[in-house]
């Protein structure tokens, strides 16, 4: 067993036994960490692997949440049917945005602006549609939480924790597979130099679209989770650019384009955010925006001192590649 595999096995065992030793607060924080780790990993497929910067990933979370949420709310159909619908709609949305951008040569920061624009007008659109409940929100019926109802994805907090753990582990495995596949090579080639990739026979347009579709589809799954975990959906919140940035930060802090960076970054940021909230509360300084200030400072620190994120230097020290 390699060093990385051993480390991963230990982490996985620790994560599996965690709900038995943790209290409800710790469990909710751990669930949040996994949620951001997974979503950031999904974003990383597009930016970290294929080099396409999306600043509007909240769009796919929102689409996933509303697709599965509305199906449950209006028709009583559970998330297992909502899941493929959410993935399909989000992937389609990603392909439409990607097609428009790549077809007309919108690249770099302009592409990033386009992704924000789509998230924004979807937010405004959802605010004005009847089936979403508009700005008043959509509230999924909450059932008894003490018994597990897998069919409707209802149960105690540990159920949600394990669901997120499975998703995060699955995404890690999928991304590792992808990186070592033809797609992974082509994406990284496109990220590093599009002209050179094209000259080597890579159909750049098609492979970029695939990256967007996979990333969007993966992100939609976190939306489905979000809908059934929080049970309330507001366009104002779920599609906000702030949410998109939160998704990205895990990867940026952990290491864009790496496999473990998103997980590490999400853990670091979530723990930091909780610690800051607790510290501010203990000191009695409950200033709005204080958390954001700390986020900003940490981000600056990472950009200045660890421009490739926390993971690459750590991996080097541990003797692990990637």
């Amino acid at each position, binding site marked *: 067993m390699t060093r990385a595999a051993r480390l991963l096995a230990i982490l996985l065992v620790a994560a599996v036994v965690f709900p038995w030793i943790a209290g409800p607060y710790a469990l909710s924080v751990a669930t949040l960490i996994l949620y951001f780790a997974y979503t950031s990993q999904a974003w990383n497929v597009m930016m970290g692997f294929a080099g396409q910067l999306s600043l509007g990933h909240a769009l796919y979370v929102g689409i996933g949440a509303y697709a599965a949420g509305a199906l449950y709310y209006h028709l009583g159909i559970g998330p297992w049917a909502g899941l493929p619908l959410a993935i399909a709609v989000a992937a389609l949305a990603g392909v439409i945005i990607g097609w428009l951008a790549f077809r007309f040569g919108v690249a770099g920061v302009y592409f990033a602006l386009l992704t924000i624009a789509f998230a924004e007008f979807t937010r405004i659109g959802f605010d004005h549609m009847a089936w979403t409940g508009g700005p008043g929100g959509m509230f999924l019926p909450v059932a008894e939480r003490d018994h597990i109802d897998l069919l409707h994805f209802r149960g105690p907090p540990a159920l949600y924790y394990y669901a997120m753990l499975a998703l995060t582990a699955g995404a890690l495995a999928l991304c590792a597979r992808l990186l070592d596949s*033809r797609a992974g090579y082509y994406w*990284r080639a496109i*990220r*590093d*130099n599009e002209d*050179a990739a094209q*000259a080597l*026979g890579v159909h750049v347009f098609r492979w970029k679209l695939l990256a967007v579709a996979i990333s969007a589809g993966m992100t939609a799954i976190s939306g489905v989770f979000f809908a059934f975990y929080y049970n309330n959906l507001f366009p104002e919140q779920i599609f906000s650019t702030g949410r998109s940035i939160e998704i990205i930060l895990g990867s940026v802090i952990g290491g864009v384009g790496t496999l473990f960076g998103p997980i590490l970054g999400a853990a670091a940021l979530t723990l930091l955010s909780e610690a800051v909230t607790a510290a501010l509360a203990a000191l009695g300084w409950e200033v709005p925006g204080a958390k954001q200030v700390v986020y900003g400072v940490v981000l600056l620190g990472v950009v200045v001192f660890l421009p490739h994120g926390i993971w690459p230097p750590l991996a080097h020290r541990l003797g692990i590649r990637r």
Partner: protein
Amino acid sequence: MTELLRAHGLAKSFRGLKAVASASFDVAEGEIAALIGPNGAGKTTVFNLIAGVHAPDAGTIHFGGRPIHGLRPDQICAAGIGRTFQLVKPFPTLSVLDNVVVGALRVERTVAGARAAALAVLGRLGLEARAAHPAATLTLSDRRRLEIARALATRPRLLLLDEVMAGLRPTECDQLVEVFRGLHRSEGVTILLIEHVMRAVMALAQRIAVLDRGEVIATGTPGEVVNDPAVLSCYLGEDTEL
């Protein structure tokens, strides 16, 4: 010898400026041909028309009898034409080996197969010792070799070399000339050089086409071309020594 590449009446303008007026030439299967000409003669434009970077305004390009003008660069590659870039474009964060794997994946079905093929190509270009290094750490001369390795890994029938000698020291240039001679001998790959460095052109090319102001003004063996009065007056000048 059968002709592999045939360009006929190529024309391309940029914002009204005629870069290539009516260029026609051909490259025979298995030969090393060169396209030369003074600065601004349209060499790079011709190169880009063949490589699919630009579509010609007029004229045709046939490769192995098939029209290829107007195809995208990746389609040109798939048709069997490999190219290098004058300003080298390695994938800087990928290892030298992974750079070549990207090219090898055009013909290999699996990543493992592509890796094996890429290693073999690196060996032929003397880059195997650098295989695990990030491409960004290579010297210019090695980056040029990497460009050639990547292009070769796509198994081209024709290798297009865009000023592959530019910026190299004479000894490095001679080493690269040997590499091309070796490749030509062992795999019979057809090569079209677009080149400024006469030292390399004279050492390699079996046939030369001279481009001036967007038109081909002379074609022939190196000996014929250097004695052509039109070439002498436009390009080489009286005091050029070869």
